[in-house]
Structure formats: structure tokens, C-alpha cells
């Protein structure tokens, strides 16, 4: 192996696909998934972590990925189909450090038989090796050989060669226990059962954020909160998770009654910044993190008795608050402090929305997101029609999770509100 002489000081690197191949059969979702797997290939052998950034992020990611052709404002112009395929810049403080460019005139493929096009995953793994600080290698089985060697198989099963692992670990060390280490001696006798754990000991089992099925999701002052049982995760406006470990509900929301162990809906009220948490037939109003006053009945917001609320969100376009129960929704006028007449209405007016959503929220860019199970439906700003490519898996976009594996256990998107039209279902890596 060969080292470029530079490396990243930090261990969490951000990335984003800035432009996609124009004439490839690969969807943008597939391209992003392949990039995620190519980065993860380097991450599992080191302590490195990779976070995909949204396009609205305030800062540029460490690794900006582009598909470009011919001269593209750096000193490595591409040369059309064949010849040079891609390049990446070594780590450093320069804004282009880490950036990775693919020749958009190549025929980028995934999973096709050798000889057809150029396997995007194989080239991406190579280029990210450069972006992490590796030079070219002459070792026969190295991914860092300068010449394209064809596809390297299934992205979720691919493993770096020893030469590449050694080069990488020279730079970033080794994760204490990579998933591939084979025990070299009999495992020790199992330890005695641990004593009863204090209630919020860090080693208490916590829910898996990548499994979806959240109880509530809310945009609170630009941060997105994902509630599940007596836990929640927080996503900063940059798209970065505050922590992969969830925080305890009652330690954060001071005054929330201890018997309230699940939040079924939540939203931040625009007019005064209060935060409302819903559970059962009641809701609680918080000023910042402190409870303000006693529990209130849902009737205060115009909902008839007979159950909880599935989802609540406030629409900045009209300052109204929408409360969803099953297939119906009510609207509450925050300014007039009274429910709007003529409700409830059928949720199918939000074309493509799933019934009984886990929750709904409006992003910082003004798009409306319906969440249910492990999927989300995106409604562009001001629109009541879901994006055609909805639903999409929550994990990879929001919570730094790998794309859901394909197979019988893969979480299937729940039936959305049916709408007329042919269904052009294609099976791709991310579906």
C-alpha cells in the first residue's frame, strides 16, 4: 500500500452527492446507497464514521461527490468514455480535500455482468481510499490498484483486502472489535448475570432507531425529535444526530408525569414557541423544557372524545394546526384559538398520505413529511400531493442508518392512500 502523506484528524466525516450521473440507469437513491456502502466498507475496518448531509446544510461536507465531464475546474480533466474514470483529493484543509469526482461519460452500472459498463461501487471504494489518504497500490488484490479490475460483488458483503486494511489502519488505527475479527481462542465462560441496573444506566437496552415505528416526530426549533417509548433522538439542523444513543424522556421534559411513558404526537406552536406533547386523550404544554400548567384535554383543540391523536403538525403557510386521527383530520386556528369549522375531513385530501400516520412534521425547508413504520412520504413545500418517489426509508435520510436490506424481513412501506394510475415498481438496491 502507499500513503499519500495526509489524513483526517477527525473520525466522523460528512458526505453528500452534489451531482448525479445524467445518463445512467441508476436512480439517485441507488447512487446514494452505493456511496453509503462504499464509505461503510472503509468505516468497518477503522474507527471512521460517515454522515450523509442534507443539501441545505449550512456547511460543505468533507467529501463532496460529483459526476462531471471533461474539464470541470480541477487539474484532472476527464477524457470521455474509457481512459480515466474518476479521481479523489487527499485529506487536507483545502475546500476540495476529500472531494470525489466521477466521469459522467462513463456507463455507471451496479450489479451487472462484468464487461457491461463500469461498476460504480468498485470505483467508489477505490476513490474513497484516496479521499481517506491512501495512494495507489501494486498489491494484486488491492482495491487501490490504479487500473479498473471490474465489479467486486455485492456491496453489502464486500470486504477490503489485507493490503488495504493495513494501509487504512496505519492512518486511523483499528476499531477495537471489527465485526470480522475471528476469536483466536475459546470464548471465556459467560460472566455472572449483572446486578439489577439502575433505571437509566447507559447499558440499559434502548430501542433501535433504524427500526422506525416512532411514536411521534416533531420539528422543535429547527431540530427534529424522534420519540419512541420513554426515549427520543435529536437531529440537529445540519442533519447530524446529537447522539446515536437516545435520551430519556423524563430527564429532558421536566414535569412530564412519570405515568406518561409514550408520546403519541408533538409539535412546536409557532405563535409563542411553546411545545405540545400528546399522550392518550391529553396534552401538555412546555415552555422550553419546563412543563407549564396541568394536563389539557384534546377537546380544547376541537377533537371529539374517543381516543388519542395519531399526528399533529403546524403548517407555517397558514399558521393552522392539523390534528390527525385515523383517516380523518381536524384543523385548529392558533391565532383565533379555536377549531376551524367544516372539519373533520378525509386524509385522502393529502394525496398519497398513509392513513393513521405515526406523525407528521414540517422540515426547516418547508416540506411536509408524513411518517409511518420505517418510511416517510414527502410533500414539497405548499403541496398536498406526495412526491412520486414516496415512500422512502426513514433510516438512511434522517438517522444515519444503512439502507434497509432487501429480503422478506425488509420493512415494507405500509399501504398509502391509494390513488389511480399505473404502478411502475422497479426493484433496486434501496427498495
Amino acid at each position: 500500500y502507499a500513503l499519500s502523506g495526509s489524513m483526517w484528524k477527525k473520525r466522523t466525516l460528512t458526505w453528500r452527492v452534489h451531482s448525479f450521473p445524467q445518463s445512467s440507469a441508476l436512480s439517485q437513491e441507488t447512487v446514494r446507497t452505493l456511496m453509503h456502502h462504499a464509505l461503510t466498507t472503509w468505516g468497518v475496518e477503522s474507527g471512521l464514521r460517515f454522515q450523509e448531509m442534507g443539501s441545505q446544510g449550512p456547511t460543505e461536507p468533507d467529501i463532496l461527490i460529483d459526476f462531471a465531464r471533461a474539464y470541470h475546474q480541477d487539474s484532472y480533466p476527464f477524457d470521455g468514455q474509457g481512459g480515466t474514470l474518476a479521481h479523489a483529493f487527499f485529506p487536507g484543509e483545502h475546500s476540495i480535500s476529500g472531494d470525489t469526482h466521477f466521469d459522467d461519460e462513463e456507463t455507471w452500472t451496479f450489479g451487472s455482468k462484468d464487461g457491461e459498463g463500469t461498476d460504480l461501487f468498485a470505483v467508489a471504494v477505490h476513490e474513497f481510499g484516496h479521499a481517506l489518504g491512501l495512494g495507489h497500490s501494486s498489491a494484486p488484490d488491492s482495491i487501490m490498484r490504479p487500473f479498473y479490475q471490474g465489479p467486486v460483488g455485492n456491496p453489502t458483503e464486500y470486504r477490503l483486502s489485507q493490503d488495504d486494511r493495513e494501509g487504512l489502519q496505519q492512518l486511523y488505527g483499528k476499531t477495537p472489535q471489527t465485526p470480522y475479527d475471528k476469536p483466536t481462542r475459546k470464548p471465556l465462560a459467560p460472566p455472572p448475570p449483572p446486578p439489577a441496573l439502575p433505571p437509566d444506566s447507559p447499558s440499559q437496552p434502548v430501542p433501535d432507531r433504524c427500526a422506525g415505528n416512532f411514536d411521534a416526530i416533531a420539528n422543535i426549533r429547527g431540530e427534529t425529535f424522534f420519540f419512541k417509548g420513554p426515549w427520543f433522538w435529536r437531529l440537529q439542523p445540519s442533519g447530524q444526530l446529537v447522539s446515536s444513543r437516545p435520551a430519556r424522556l423524563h430527564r429532558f421534559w421536566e414535569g412530564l408525569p412519570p405515568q406518561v411513558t409514550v408520546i403519541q404526537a408533538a409539535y412546536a406552536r409557532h405563535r409563542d414557541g411553546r411545545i405540545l406533547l400528546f399522550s392518550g386523550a391529553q396534552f401538555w404544554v412546555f415552555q422550553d423544557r419546563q412543563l407549564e400548567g396541568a394536563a389539557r384535554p384534546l377537546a380544547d383543540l376541537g377533537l371529539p372524545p374517543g381516543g388519542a391523536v395519531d399526528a399533529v403538525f403546524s403548517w407555517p403557510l397558514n399558521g393552522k394546526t392539523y390534528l390527525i386521527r385515523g383517516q380523518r383530520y381536524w384543523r385548529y386556528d392558533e391565532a383565533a384559538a379555536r377549531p376551524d369549522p367544516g372539519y373533520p375531513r378525509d386524509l385522502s385530501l393529502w394525496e398519497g398520505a398513509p392513513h393513521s400516520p405515526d406523525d407528521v412534521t414540517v422540515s426547516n425547508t418547508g416540506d411536509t413529511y408524513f411518517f409511518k413504520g420505517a418510511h416517510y412520504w414527502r410533500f414539497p413545500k405548499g403541496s398536498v400531493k406526495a412526491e412520486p418517489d414516496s415512500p422512502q426509508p426513514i433510516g438512511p435520510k434522517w438517522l444515519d442508518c444503512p439502507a434497509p436490506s432487501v429480503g422478506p424481513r425488509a420493512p415494507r412501506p405500509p399501504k398509502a392512500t391509494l390513488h389511480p394510475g399505473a404502478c411502475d415498481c422497479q426493484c433496486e438496491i434501496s427498495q
Partner: protein
Amino acid sequence: AQEPSAQDVSLGVDWLTRYGYLPPPHPAQAQLQSQAKLRDAIKVMQRFAGLPETGLLDPVTVATMHKPRCSLPDVLGVAGLVRRRRR
């Protein structure tokens, strides 16, 4: 092996220079490119390409120079940026 054509040699030297096997030409010095230096550069390139290390611009070596590849240089030795670690 048959002698490579002048064009192959010229293209070969350009290719070897582009990918770091030969130092970039310097018009002021116009340092002579000794045959030995060219032969060594070809041998290193053949090692990267997994070819027999003949040191000659034989047809298979010339053909390999047209194969799809990464556009970063293989050897950044000029500025000592690449530390080659022998195992």
C-alpha cells in the same frame, strides 16, 4: 520484442510522466532521459499493472496504458509525498 514505434515511445513517455513514473519535463534543464531511467519507470508501471516487469514498451504494456483507470498518479515520489512501505 519488436522495437516500439516513435509514437508509442512518445505517448508512453507522456503517460509515464502523467502518472508520476517520470519527473515532469523541465524546458530549462531539458535533462536527458537516460534509457536506464525510462526502463526503470516502465518496470514500476508494469508492477502496478500486474504485467511481467520487462522494462520494455512492448505491445501489452502500451495496450495497458489505454485501459480504464483512476486519474490520480500512481507515484507521487517527486515531492516525496508517497512513502512506499515495504512489508
